[in-house]
Structures are given as structure tokens and as C-alpha cells.
């Protein structure tokens, strides 16, 4: 093929193509405009109103926002709890997920059974049954206490109910979240599969051991997936809700009052949907900022094989 044509064609594949672009994102865009924009806009409007779910909301300007920042102790408690939770659980869960994914990526005898077993916790979800189970396991007479007593790691007098003692309640929710590490693990596995085997073969020929291979090949090749998991786990950490609702109900002493749980209480228990919406929009702005920062830093540590239209 003549060189000239190739260059022209190559250029064309990067050319703007509005029809193709809107064709591919079409379904999403329609959904966004029809089902998402209106509710989002309405929640923004509610955040400037007093809305007890009956009749029409009354406009109060920035009143909700002012009250949140100046006169709401529970808001600060909720922020504190949520940030602590995210800071601890995200790194732990990702490290665990990546470690296990590495263990299970090579086909070996029994490995598909292991994979299934390690994934099971992630499908039990956040049902009432799980809440009962978790309370029992971490209860006064639960398995954890029995184990600690048996190995002599705890004095009998120190036995406690872990989910309802103020100092440990959040910890048990973190353990639960880390225990359910299956979703990032699965994504890591899918990502590991994309790394070409020759890269490892070449590195092995160069004399790189498994650890050197991990840092020189696996981590860089996986960086886009790590980035994805990191961002998504952070977001879902901030949005955590079900476990705290079912297991601790925010207590004891608000020590597990997750931010979204507080929004939920305000909106549906106390019927202050306007206030709840304001809380949600504060969170949205904070997370948008955070996400923006994470995206910006990703330029320095995430390697893409190809730069897409948005990179």
C-alpha cells in the first residue's frame, strides 16, 4: 500500500467523527437526559428548600447549607467517621484483592475452586441475614471472642461485643468491607489477563525474579486497572450505607454514622428531604473535587497503551 494513503487513513481514524461518537454514546446520553438530569436537578432544588415530603417545598435559600456547617454536630461526626472508614478500608481492600488475584491468576490445580471460595463473601451482600450473622460472630459470646480467649490473647473480663462497643464498632464494619474484596479482585483478574505473556517471558530471560517482574511488569501494565479500582472503591466507600444501617444503625454513640446513613436518616426518618439534599450536594462537590484530583494525578502514574479521546 502506498505510504501516502496510509498516512491519510491513519489520520482519518483520529479525526473527529460526531456521528459515530454520538451513535456509540447515544443510549447512555438518552438515559442521562431522560432519567438522570431531572432527578439530579430536583435534588439540587430541594437542597435550597424546606421539604417534608408533603405538598410543595418552601424556598429557604442557603439556610440548609449554613445550618450544616455552623450548627450540626452530627454532620462533623459523620464526616469524621466516613473519612476514617475510607482511608483505612480502601488501601486494605485493594491490597488484599490484588494479592489474592496474583495468587489465583495462574491456572493450577484447585485454583478455580479457591477463586470461587474467596469470592463467596462478596456475593452474600448486605442482607438482614448477613447483619444477624455479623453481630453473632462479633458478639459477646461470638467466635472472635472465643478464639481470642482460647489463644489467651484477651482476658475474660475484656470480652465485649465488638459491633456495639464504641471503640471497635467501625473496625468490624471495615473488616466486613475488606472481607468482601471480591469485586476489585475480579477486575484485577480481568486486568491481569490483558498483560501479554511475552512481557513476562522477556523479563524472565533478562533474569528478573517474580518480585522484580511484579514491580516492573505487573504494576505498570495494571496501572489503569489499579487506577480504576482505586477511584471506584473510594467513591463506593464514601457512599457506603447498607452495612451501617443493618448492623450498627449508626451507633453506638454515632461512631458508625456514615455520611449517607445520616442523609438517609434526615430524609426518610426525620422527613427533612431539603436538608438531606443539601448534605448530598456538599458530598457531591467534595467528591467531584477529589475525583478531579485523582484524575489529574493519574497522568503521572497511570500508563495507557493508547491515549483515548479523553486523555
Amino acid at each position: 500500500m502506498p505510504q501516502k494513503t496510509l498516512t491519510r487513513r491513519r489520520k482519518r481514524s483520529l479525526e473527529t467523527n460526531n456521528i459515530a461518537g454520538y451513535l456509540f454514546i447515544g443510549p447512555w446520553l438518552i438515559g442521562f437526559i431522560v432519567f438522570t438530569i431531572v432527578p439530579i436537578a430536583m435534588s439540587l432544588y430541594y437542597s435550597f428548600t424546606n421539604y417534608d415530603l408533603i405538598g410543595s417545598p418552601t424556598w429557604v435559600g442557603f439556610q440548609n447549607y449554613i445550618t450544616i456547617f455552623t450548627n450540626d454536630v452530627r454532620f462533623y461526626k459523620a464526616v469524621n467517621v466516613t473519612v476514617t472508614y475510607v482511608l483505612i478500608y480502601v488501601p486494605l481492600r485493594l491490597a488484599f484483592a490484588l494479592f489474592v488475584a496474583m495468587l489465583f491468576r495462574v491456572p493450577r490445580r484447585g485454583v478455580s475452586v479457591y477463586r470461587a471460595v474467596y469470592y463467596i463473601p462478596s456475593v452474600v451482600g448486605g442482607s438482614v441475614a448477613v447483619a444477624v450473622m455479623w453481630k453473632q460472630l462479633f458478639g459477646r459470646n461470638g467466635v472472635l471472642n472465643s478464639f481470642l480467649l482460647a489463644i489467651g490473647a484477651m482476658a475474660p473480663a475484656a470480652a465485649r461485643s465488638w459491633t456495639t462497643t464504641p471503640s471497635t464498632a467501625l473496625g468490624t464494619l471495615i473488616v466486613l468491607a475488606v472481607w468482601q474484596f471480591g469485586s476489585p479482585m475480579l477486575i484485577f483478574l480481568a486486568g491481569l489477563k490483558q498483560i501479554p505473556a511475552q512481557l513476562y517471558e522477556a523479563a524472565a530471560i533478562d533474569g528478573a525474579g517474580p518480585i522484580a517482574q511484579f514491580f516492573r511488569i505487573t504494576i505498570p501494565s495494571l496501572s489503569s486497572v489499579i487506577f480504576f479500582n482505586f477511584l471506584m472503591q473510594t467513591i463506593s466507600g464514601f457512599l457506603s450505607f447498607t452495612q451501617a444501617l443493618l448492623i450498627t444503625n449508626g451507633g453506638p454513640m454515632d461512631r458508625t454514622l456514615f455520611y449517607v446513613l445520616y442523609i438517609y436518616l434526615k430524609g426518610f426518618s426525620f422527613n427533612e428531604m431539603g436538608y438531606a439534599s443539601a448534605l448530598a450536594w456538599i458530598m457531591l462537590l467534595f467528591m467531584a473535587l477529589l475525583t478531579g484530583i485523582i484524575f489529574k494525578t493519574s497522568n503521572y502514574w497511570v500508563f495507557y497503551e493508547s491515549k483515548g479521546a479523553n486523555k
Partner: protein
Amino acid sequence: MKKLLVFALVLTLAIGVMPAHAQEQVTLRISWWGSQTRHDRTIEAIKLFESQNPGVTIEPEYMSWNDYWIRMATLMAAEQLPDIMQQDLQYIRQYADKGLLENLSPYVDSGALNLSDSDPAFWTGGMLGDKLYGLNLGTNSLMQVYDAVWLNELGIEMLQPGYTWEDYVAFLRELRAVLPDGVYPSADVVTNQIYNLITHRVRQLGGHFYAEDGKSLGFDEALLTWCFQFEKDLTDEALIPPMDLRLEMGVSPEMNLIVTKQSVMMETNSNQLISAVNASGRPLAGNIMPVADDQVMNGQYIKPSQFFSVSAHSAHKDIAVKFLDFITNSVECNDILLAERGVPISSKIREELKPKLSEVDAIVFDFLGVAAKYADQISPPEPAGHSEVYDLLKTYDQNVCFGEMTPEAAAKEFIPKANDLLANK
């Protein structure tokens, strides 16, 4: 084409001139929360009602407690509340104040809702002022559940109705002396929630938890300090379990310490005796709450377990009320429901049901008879700010019991905050 039009016209006319007495098709929606037994029995009762009222269809919508209130909030916003909804003391005032519930008093006056067999003490709990907004579906009262067999083995005699707070504490101490570590005389002080302790005590002094207009608390710092202190003392003496254990149990009787024989007593609503007996597999009995030497009124009260209310926007209020009357007075219907929602309000129905009851149900029925003798009129339903005040109270109570605050300090902080919340609702 023309023929078709003519045909359509004739058809329309035919429908229009159909005899007026032809069955009108009416569909009502009804919603409740509950457990499997309740779902099964209520659906069964609805079928019976439908068979007796041709043309009427009642569509049930049932959920769990938490989900129920989310759904109702959403339906409320969309102005789609069901024709008949199960209501609770905690919420009924909010819904009524917003004009969402139909005043049932006129129907009682007209006899459409026949309460002539029901003692007013059993149904006036659904009233706000002189208007009836909820029909009581079953009656409850706070109960001290105890293991009579165990007490017998221990050689300790149970307190008799009319015992005082002092008697109660002395009794717990007596038990403490003979019980091993890790086993508690009682699983909780007044259903695990300080709220009931305060309510009980403030009533004995002649007041109510909330002021009459619902815009402030009905008790002062001194009373709250007394309650916090009382609970803390019981905890410190290990007469009741430490706070973390009480929170672990939660409010489900199935998970109460009495089930695992880690406590001799528990406090609960009388209908929950059945769950405790089922879960423990042992016979249990019930007693009333303590009285006080200085009381001007009984702390104990007969309480509606839940109501059926009729939506103010319902298009078929007459049929909805008819259903309520059916639930209250139909023997056949109550043969199906079998007092699952609590002891029925109609004395006639109670008599009818007595021979058909299980052993536990019979204990609950008898208990209510005793409790009624030691009971006074129920306090008015909780005001709109209740859930938030309740939440706040729990937090302060936990602060006291986990030793983070003194009873005095907690009381001092709580009162103005709660009053503030209530005033702003």
C-alpha cells in the same frame, strides 16, 4: 367501518343503561409491615372480606418495618398513599397533622365502625384531640417476662403486681447473689430503651414524655438525671448487662439474653412474649411493670400495637371503613387473624377467641387483664420531631452507660437540644 361505529355506539349505550344495581367493581389498596405469620393471616382475612363483598378487590402491599416507612414517605410525596395503611404510634400524629388520614370519629358515631363491644381504654390510643385517626388492631402493654421454672429452681419468689421500684431493685439484687458471672437478673431495664423508662416514670409523676402541644419535652432535668442514674446503677451492679451487650441484643426478642438463659427476666411488649417462647423453647411468664410509692398515676398503660388508618384521599372510604369494622367485629375474621397483632379490642372477640388460643397466647390475654387494672390512659401519640429526639436520647444514654458522660451532664445537655428540635418542627 360504519358498521363498526354503530356497533361501538350500541355497545356504549348498552353499558350505559345496564341495571343500576349491577356490581360496581372497586379496588382498594392496603399496606402493612410484619412477619410471615401476619402476611399469611392478613391475606387470608382479605380473601374472606372479598368473598363477603362481591365486587370489592383489596390489593395487599406488605413489607418489613424499615422498608415500609421508606415506601410510605415516597408514596406520600407522590400523593399515592394506599386506601388503608397500617400505622404506628410513632408516626400517626405526623401523618394526621399533614391531613393525610381520615378522621374516623364520624364513622364511629354513625355506627359504620362499630366499637360498642370495645372498651374505650383499648381504642382511644388512636385519638388526637377528639378525632380518631387510627383503629387499634391489637392491644399491648409493657411486660416483665420471666422464667418461672428457673426462679423456682433458684428458690426465689417472683414479685407480685403492685411491687415498687425498690422492690424491683431488691429483687434483682437477690437474683444477682445467686447467679453466676455472665448471667444477669434482667436483660434490660424497660425494653432496652431509656425511652420507655422515662415514659413510665414521668407518667407516674402525672406527666407525659412530650408536652401537650408536642413542642417541648414533658419532663425536666431532675427526672432525666434520675432515669440515667437508675439505669447506670443497675448496669454498674451487673443487675442488667453492660451497654454493649444490650445493644447487641437489639429489640428482637429472638436475640434476647433470656433466650440463651443468660438472664432470668426481660422487658418487652406483651405480644413479643410469643417470639421469646418460640426462640427459647421454654415456657415463660409475664408480670407488669413497677409502681411507685409517690405515684399520682399509673406508669403502665394499655397501648395499641398498631392501627389501620384510612387515607384522607381514598376514593372508597366507606368500603375501607367497612373493612376496619370487619377486622374489629367479625368472629370469622378474627378466627383467621388469631390475635397476631395483639389482643383484640372487642371484648366479644376476646371471649370468642379464648378457647382457641395457644398456651402462650392465653398468658398474654390474661396478662392484659391484670395490666388493665394497673393502667391509666395512654399518653398522646408522639409528635413529628419524635424520631430525631429518640435518636438523640439514645446517643446520650449510650454516653452515660459507656462512661463517657455523667448522668447529670448528659441530662443537662440533652434537654435544651431536644426542646430546640421539637420547637423547630
